[in-house]
């Protein structure tokens, strides 16, 4: 704790450090300056930015989980999801978002997929919401393609040596959604209960879905 600034006095009865933008990350300051310029030049409106952010933060991994749970219970739906994820999302009444194309890939006993964007933070935001901070970190982005098994192990996922590991670097227009393996002991569960087991991280491919509660198993 530092001492309150002696000359800080604006008529209320507690002491604190002056409130400033001093700790603002450079990227945030740059984004703010860009936004101001684009608005001034009439390229975008503040309203559009606010609506875009509202849409983005309204998305959640719950949508992706619904797709996965349906794929687990309905093999024909899974085939459609693997063939055209956008159409499959629309079929469930989900919003697959604007242009980037979503491709679903399936984890099995023999093959495990994990997803990274080494160039930036490409992510199926429409179906999973905003990416976690670690997904955007330099450490994950560089190590996922150079030491993928080591990264998975740090997430608590130890793959059997005979499982083929595929790392997908989404460098361009495609966004990848992983269909994780259905956990054992879930044959009695309904689609909604299954969806509750499908975690965000399992759809990025750095974790398995949650185990069913003992009572449900």
């Amino acid at each position, binding site marked *: 704790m530092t001492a309150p600034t002696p000359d800080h006095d604006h008529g209320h009865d507690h002491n604190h450090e002056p409130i400033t933008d001093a700790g603002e990350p450079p990227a945030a300051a740059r984004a703010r300056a860009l936004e101001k310029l684009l608005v001034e030049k009439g390229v975008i409106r503040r309203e559009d930015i606010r609506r875009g952010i509202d849409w983005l933060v309204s998305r959640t991994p719950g949508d992706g989980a619904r797709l996965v749970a349906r794929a687990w219970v309905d093999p024909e739906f899974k085939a459609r999801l693997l063939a055209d994820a956008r159409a499959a999302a629309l079929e469930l009444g989900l919003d697959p978002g604007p242009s980037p*194309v979503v491709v679903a890939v399936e984890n099995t006993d023999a093959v495990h997929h994990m997803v990274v964007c080494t*160039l930036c933070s490409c992510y199926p935001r429409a179906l999973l919401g905003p990416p976690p901070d670690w997904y955007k970190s330099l450490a994950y982005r560089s190590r996922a*393609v150079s*030491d993928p098994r080591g990264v998975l192990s740090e997430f608590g996922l130890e793959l059997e040596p005979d499982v*083929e590991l595929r*790392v997908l*670097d989404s*460098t*361009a227009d*495609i966004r990848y959604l992983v269909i994780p393996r259905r956990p054992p002991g879930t044959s009695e569960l309904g689609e909604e209960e299954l969806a509750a087991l499908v975690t965000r991280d399992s759809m990025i491919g750095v974790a398995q879905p949650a185990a069913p509660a003992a009572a449900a198993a």
Partner: protein
Amino acid sequence: MTYQIGQPVRVTNRAHDGHHRTPGYVKGKTGRIERVHDAFRNPETRAYGEDGLPEVALYLVSFAREDLWPGLDGQSDERIYVDLYEHWLEEAG
């Protein structure tokens, strides 16, 4: 679409002064076509306010991890899959 699934391709090893979506770690490396996605507007011109036309084919290309990072510890069968535009690919082998 020039390349077919299973075909070996080499990523052109050239510098590119400006926005592009080909990561440096695959430049000059040889991989294998895994999927032929579709054609998309070119991000290298779109990034500068142009229309990105003509569209360019996008492929999913896989590389052996040990070819990308020789000498690093790890299992030898791991493969790294990268989306690459056709104008960065050339025939190999």
